[in-house]
Structure formats: C-alpha cells, structure tokens
C-alpha cells in the first residue's frame, strides 16, 4: 500500500470550514430538530465535529451501506431512529459519482422523511454521474483520490488530521 502524498486540506482549514457550515445549518434548521444521518465510516469525524459546532437542537444517527455478495449495494446497518416525518440531514464525507448518495437519498425518502438534505465535506464534481442537489459543501476538490479525516484506503489512514492526496 502506498503512503499518502501531499496535504490537500490542513486540519485548521477543515475546522474553520466546518464551523462556517455549522452556522449556516443552524440558521436553516432552527426549530426543525433535524437528525444528522451519518454515513459510516468515512463521515464519522466530520459528523462529530459538525455536531459539536452546531447550536440547533439535533439528534445523530448512523447508516452503513455495502455491496453484498451479488455486487448489489444494500443498507447493511440501518439507522436506529424512526425517520418518518423527520428532517434528515445526510452527512457525507465525499460525493464524486453521486451513485452512493443517490441510493441513500432514495432509501431515506422511502422511510418517510419530511425532508432530505445533503451535507458533504468534499465534493468532486468532475466525475458526477447523478446530479443530486447538495445543500452544504465543505470543499470542492479536484479529481484526486484522498485519505485522512475519516477517508480511507483499505480501512487505513482515516485517523490522519489533514486530508492528503493518495495515489492508489
């Protein structure tokens, strides 16, 4: 496995941007008691930091999707809370093709959520296949593979504080 390359986004820059996102979400979700539905595992650092910065009352839940033995994407661990009638803020680490996000948004809508909005730390629009609206974007990045701050390669490097470029 290769070593991570140059830093793309430093820890401090990430923190500042998350703070700004939290302010924006606070305004939009005042009195709506949203649930921050966090896609595991890549988004858990981001969701934790965002949640700590938010003033608006909210709950947190988690969701894991994975490809099963037939290759189909499935919800492996569904959220424990009932999403029916809730304002759901989907927390993503990165959106590139949009295929995973498309699947999850569909899933959440089927659970009867009152609204579904997407918040992603990183957006790589170059390879976008599915054009879903993303309400909150931390950083728009070039078409590179990245690791750190929750993002991994074969489960490694999630713990890095900065986000690095990685060449598989």
């Amino acid at each position, binding site marked *: 496995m290769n070593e991570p390359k140059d830093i793309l986004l430093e820890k401090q820059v990430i923190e500042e941007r998350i703070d700004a996102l939290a302010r924006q979400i606070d305004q939009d979700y005042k009195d709506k008691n949203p649930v921050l539905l966090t896609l595991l595992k890549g988004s858990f650092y981001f969701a934790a930091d965002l949640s700590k910065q938010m003033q608006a009352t909210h709950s947190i839940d988690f969701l894991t999707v*994975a*490809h099963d033995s037939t*290759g*189909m*994407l499935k919800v492996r661990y569904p959220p424990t809370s009932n999403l029916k009638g809730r304002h759901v803020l989907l927390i993503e680490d990165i959106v*590139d*093709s949009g*295929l*995973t996000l*498309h*699947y999850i948004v*569909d899933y959440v809508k089927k659970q009867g959520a009152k609204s579904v909005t997407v918040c992603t730390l990183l957006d790589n629009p*170059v*390879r*976008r*296949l*599915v*054009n879903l609206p993303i309400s909150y974007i931390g950083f728009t990045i070039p*078409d590179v*593979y990245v690791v750190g701050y929750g993002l*991994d*390669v*074969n*489960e490694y490097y999630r713990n890095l504080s900065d986000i690095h470029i990685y060449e*598989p």
Partner: protein
Amino acid sequence: MYILTISRTLGSHGDEIAKKLSQLLSIPIIDKETTYAEWLPEIADEHGVHMLRSSYAFYHHTYDRDRTYKDYVAEKLKGTLTSGPKIFLGMGSQVIFREYPSTVHIRINAPFSVRLERLQQEWHLGTAQAMLNLEESDTRRKKFIRKVHGQDWEDEFLYDLKINTAQIDVDEACDMICTLVTKRDRLCPYNANQISLFQSEPSRYEFRHEVEREFATILDSYGMDWAYEPTTFPLAFDEEGNISQAISPDFYLKREDTYIELTVMNPKYMAEKRRKIEKLRELYPEIRVILMDKKGLQAFIERHKLKTHTEEIQ
C-alpha cells in the same frame, strides 16, 4: 437468386426495414454511400463527385468517350450481383432493375404527418426543422429519379409492393416482404421463425467494449435504471435530408435523464469525440450528457473496486 430494390421516403422506416431484411435474409445492402464513397471516386475527382451529389443533370455527362456517369453506376450496381443477391436502397434501382428477373421492387412510405411526427420524436427535431428535412428529402429524391432516370418517383407501376408504414411496423413489413420473396423465388432461405429469433436477441446488451459491460455492472450494483444506446441524435444532414452524422451515447440513466458517453480512446484521438459531444450539447441544450474519458473511466472503476474491496473485508 433474387434482388430487392427498396424505394423509401424519409421517416417511413424504410432504412430500418432494409436493415432488418438484410439481417433476416443475410443479404448485404448497397446504398448511395457505396456509390459516392467507393465507385464514383474511381472515375471522378473530388469536384466531380461533389457535382454528382449536388446536380443530378451531371449524371448524364460523359467521363470516357460516350459513357456517362449514370451508365457507370448502373453497371457497378449490376456487377455486385456476381457475388450474390443484394438489397438496393434507393439510387433509382427500381428503374435500373425494372426488367430483371427474380426482382422484387418495394416502396415504403407513410403520410407526411406520420413521418413528421417520427422525425420529431426519433431525431428530436423541432417541427420547422423536421418539416424542412422532409420537404427537402422528398424533393431531392423525386428530382433524382426524374433527372437521372426520366421516371416519376411516385409512379405506382414501378413497384410490386407498396407499404404504408403508418399502421404497419418494421417487423410486419419485413414479414410481408419475406413472404412475397419466398413465393416469388424458392431459392429464398427465408424462415418464418427467423423474425421471432431476431426479435428476442437482447441486442442492447451486446456491448461493443468490455469496459462498457463493466460500467453497466457497476450501475446495476447501485440499482440504477439504465439503457444501452437507446437514442441516436442526428448531428448533421446531407443534401437529401438524411442523417450524415449522428451520435448514440452509450448509456442513458432513465430517472436522472442523463446520457453518458464512455471512451477508451487515447487523449490524442479524443478531439473528434469531444467535437461531437460539443455539437450534441449545442444542438440539444435540453439534454444532459457526460463524456467519460479513458482516465476518468479507469479512475471510476478503480475507485469502485477499492470501495467494494474495503466493504468485503469488513
């Protein structure tokens, strides 16, 4: 041996019928592109070919003593029969082979309004453009038969079978033609079962490249509703209103209303493809089309493999 000549109007599905007959009967099609691209350049320079395309009176000019271009094309058409039967599409073949034995002359047509609607739907043209294409095409084809062969294109006695495709689809038309051909010439290898066999072939899943199959598998894994090359977008038309340049994007994501064109070409060969995509966007601004180049496609597939590998080891 038998010969089929097919005269058709634009939007009548005549080309589709000829193509399907060619597959069903295993007979090659000879159309005007063979004439302009292969035969006429043997005796005419670029300007001469251009003149023949644009001014049909030029067919009566001589290229060698008393031999005219019209004679040359007729000889070439007849010469193709030495290698077996042929389907002749247009080119005045209903006149050239009028007295030939074992020949069936077909005319495919449909009312103007039906053809107009087809052009609008199938080629995604506006009413004015579709109407213009139809009128130009009808005029030029009629003019060609009159100027080159001195006949009336619409003379019903030039044809053995006339099919109005307003209510008859491509399969039914092929069935009728094959039945006639079978009765006319016992040498015809037509088998009624062939049509149903042909229809059941999932041609849309016959990918041209392995990478397209791989891409389709990934789309499936995300539950995407897609189609393979479902639409052809005309990009340019020739002087008769026929499509001279078109593009059929590889994939269509139905719910997202998005077309995806994949390419495995090296960057230096990408210019033409990019030009076509730009033209597509320019002519059809309402559609969303994505061009995935070789690098992007490889990255997409690699990232998918990395993701699924990670999930498997969890």
